């Protein structure tokens, strides 16, 4: 039992990553929009698990708050708002989907060549293993939020402020776009 738990802890990233892939596939393949949103929610939660297993605890929790708490609820509201059931019987995929799948497979093949070099070529040494001593810069677990905020508010203050302007513009734009014509 302990051995099982230990191996689970060691393979936490792989487990969450594969579950995220499964959720993403379910999202793309499911017929109804609500099921797609549920697959999206599952994938986002698993990606949050991946973040936590990569020593980004603050970002993992932020991911759960922003995606599961905000964006998925927003999607569900819009799914509820627009009547989707009348499209249920129609084909969910585009007419050109065969061409699209060929294009995606070509991209996958190109990347697979790159990955094959990374895994079996000269560069496949243990230099690419994430080493624990490097995580000290991220101040694992206790002070991860401190490390992130130092990066955000000291080194990258300008992008942060620009993001706040973008959020304001998006807020105003969403209100203008979604308001009814009769005012």
């Amino acid at each position: 039992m302990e051995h099982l738990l230990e191996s689970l802890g060691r393979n936490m990233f792989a487990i969450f990553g594969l579950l995220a892939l499964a959720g993403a596939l379910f999202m793309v393949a499911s017929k109804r929009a609500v099921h797609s949103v549920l697959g999206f929610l599952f994938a986002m939660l698993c990606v949050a698990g991946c973040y936590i297993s990569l020593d980004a605890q603050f970002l993992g929790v932020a991911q759960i708050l922003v995606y599961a708490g905000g964006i998925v609820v927003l999607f569900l509201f819009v799914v509820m708002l627009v009547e989707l059931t009348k499209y249920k019987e129609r084909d969910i995929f585009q007419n050109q989907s065969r061409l699209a799948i060929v294009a995606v497979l070509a991209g996958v093949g190109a990347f697979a060549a790159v990955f094959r070099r990374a895994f079996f070529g000269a560069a496949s040494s243990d230099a690419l293993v994430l080493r624990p001593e490097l995580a000290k810069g991220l101040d694992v677990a206790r002070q991860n939020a401190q490390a992130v905020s130092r990066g955000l508010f000291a080194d990258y203050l300008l992008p942060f402020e620009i993001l706040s302007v973008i959020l304001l513009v998006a807020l105003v734009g969403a209100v203008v776009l979604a308001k009814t014509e009769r005012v």
Partner: protein
Amino acid sequence: MVSLNSVLLISFGLFSIGVAGVLIRRNALVILMCVELMLNAANLNFIAFARHSGSPAGQAFALLVMGFAAAEVAVGLALVVALYRRRDTVQVDDINLLKG
């Protein structure tokens, strides 16, 4: 021990599923979700490289990307709602206003 290659593989899988979804689905809502998925794949790479290099810059930028994704979803969903009001559809191949 997580190897950087496995993180890159998972993130590549998420990204390609997102690209495939954007290309083959008809529903505008699902397309928006797939775009979010691609942003998350990029975020996963940011965090993996931050973990690899030991500097918090990657995590800070992942947080910025998350805020950007929230803004994008707000505007995108407002567009979908406006489109549904005007054209009574959210299927992208019914939207052919610019078609000659």
